[in-house]
């Protein structure tokens, strides 16, 4: 199935670099084999959507990628560096190039929005000019998500959509090259979901980021995906653009688009 679809997958020319590569990733929890040889390539400037049923291992895969879960085996190369061979300092440095938008936003609820955004800057001052004025960076990131007025609010004072935007602003503050989105529209109403999707598109254009998006939301995938992977039975079952997958005759694939 994978070979069949990949024939009609859009080809990227040889100048486009692979910024992230996963090979034969395996992860199990007890007897439950969640990832069973998953492969993935994310190209520079690309929006790659991963879809799969709940419990199919999408979040596990993305957490392996960022080092929150240790994989059983397999290779993960980010910007040419094999993450499993890096020491903590090297890995932390690499992580600053990767933004992660958590499913539940994961804002620090004891801090204001400003402090939330300043927090990632604390250990990455070397990436910015001397005499760092964090306010300028915070305000820029908040302006880009349209929430500058919320700078001194606490997370408890924000709506679900606002939290997601602030989390996105926090992700952007280090100007990452790759952004990983874990269910960016889950739990949001359709209008707010559309706003978040549009925001993701704007960010991709403005910051020239590569994005790996995990979602159940078919509309989100349709609007944002350059390419899609369906994660079924722990492997990349099928790969292609939205239209290709939508018109697939495979029952398992069709089930996602009903």
């Amino acid at each position: 199935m994978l070979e069949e679809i990949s024939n009609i997958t859009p080809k990227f020319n040889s100048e486009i670099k692979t910024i992230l590569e996963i090979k034969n990733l395996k992860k199990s929890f007890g007897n439950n084999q969640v990832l069973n040889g998953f492969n993935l390539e994310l190209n520079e400037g690309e929006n790659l959507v991963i879809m799969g049923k709940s419990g199919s291992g999408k979040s596990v895969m993305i957490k392996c990628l960022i080092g929150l879960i240790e994989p059983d085996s397999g290779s993960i190369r980010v910007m040419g560096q094999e993450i499993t061979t890096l020491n903590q300092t090297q890995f932390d440095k690499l992580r600053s190039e990767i933004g992660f938008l958590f499913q539940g936003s994961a804002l620090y609820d004891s801090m204001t929005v400003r402090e939330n955004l300043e927090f990632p800057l604390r250990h990455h001052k070397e990436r910015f000019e001397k005499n760092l004025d964090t306010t300028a960076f915070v305000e820029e990131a908040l302006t880009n998500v349209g929430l500058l007025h919320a700078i001194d609010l606490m997370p408890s004072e924000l709506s679900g959509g606002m939290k997601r935007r602030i989390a996105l602003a926090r992700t952007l503050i280090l100007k990452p090259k790759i952004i990983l989105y874990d269910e960016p529209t889950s739990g949001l109403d359709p209008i707010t979901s559309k706003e978040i999707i549009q925001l993701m598109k704007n960010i991709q254009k403005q910051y020239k980021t590569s994005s790996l998006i995990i979602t159940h939301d078919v509309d989100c995938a349709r609007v944002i995906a350059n390419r899609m992977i369906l994660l079924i039975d722990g492997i990349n079952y099928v790969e292609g653009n939205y239209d290709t997958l939508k018109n697939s005759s495979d029952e398992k694939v069709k089930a996602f688009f009903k």
Partner: protein
Amino acid sequence: MVQSSQLALNIKNFFIEIGELAYFSSRFFRELFSKPFEFKELLRQCYNMGNKSLGLVLITGFIIGLVLTIQTRPTLEQFGAESWMPSMVSISIVREIGPIITALICAGRIGSGIGAELGSMRVTEQIDAMEVSGTNPFKYLVVTRVLATTLMIPILVFFGDTMALYGSFLVENLNGDVSFFLYFDKVFHAIEYSDLLPATIKTFFFGYAIGLVGCYKGYYCEKGTVGVGIAANSAVVYTSMLLFIIDFIAVFITDIFI
């Protein structure tokens, strides 16, 4: 048969937990002396713990001083030994009652707070978000809190003891017209370094135990709101048990050497 296998499992789990706590403790000391140092967060935690617990500790100390004196007085009167009251109360409070009661109050007030706070941070992925941003969450959350409790409990005990002695003086003053200076002159004559030193040293261990168990329970909290409740609750239960064990060991060692 079922009951005995359950008992064996519980014992096994207990020892596993002891082992994990020992590892957690060793990690604390490893991280304590490595850069970067989170001074600002340490001061914030010290202020929060000290400031927010002070009122409770003062009130409890005062009441304990009152109650101890009121209940002891009739017995001492029978022997015509009322003049021994300041000595007896001061030694009881400084050596044993003050430290253990203050520590138990702080186990409930601070230990459960730490367990619930870190637990909810774990459940809402805030700890993961910290790790992803390149900040060492163990250093930022655990080291600062354990250090803060280790430093603040002795200070709180000092204030608690002072208030207890003042409460005791108040009862004595109302009953026997004892002056403030006479009462405290007797108190300071009764207390020796051999009373103060072991009592003070053990309060550091009490503080360490409160912070360590609270952080351990919260940091490794299981998923869901139930997990947060269990973390907060078990932090108090385990810490209280540990406080009595530490107290017993401290008394045992003091008895040998002094």
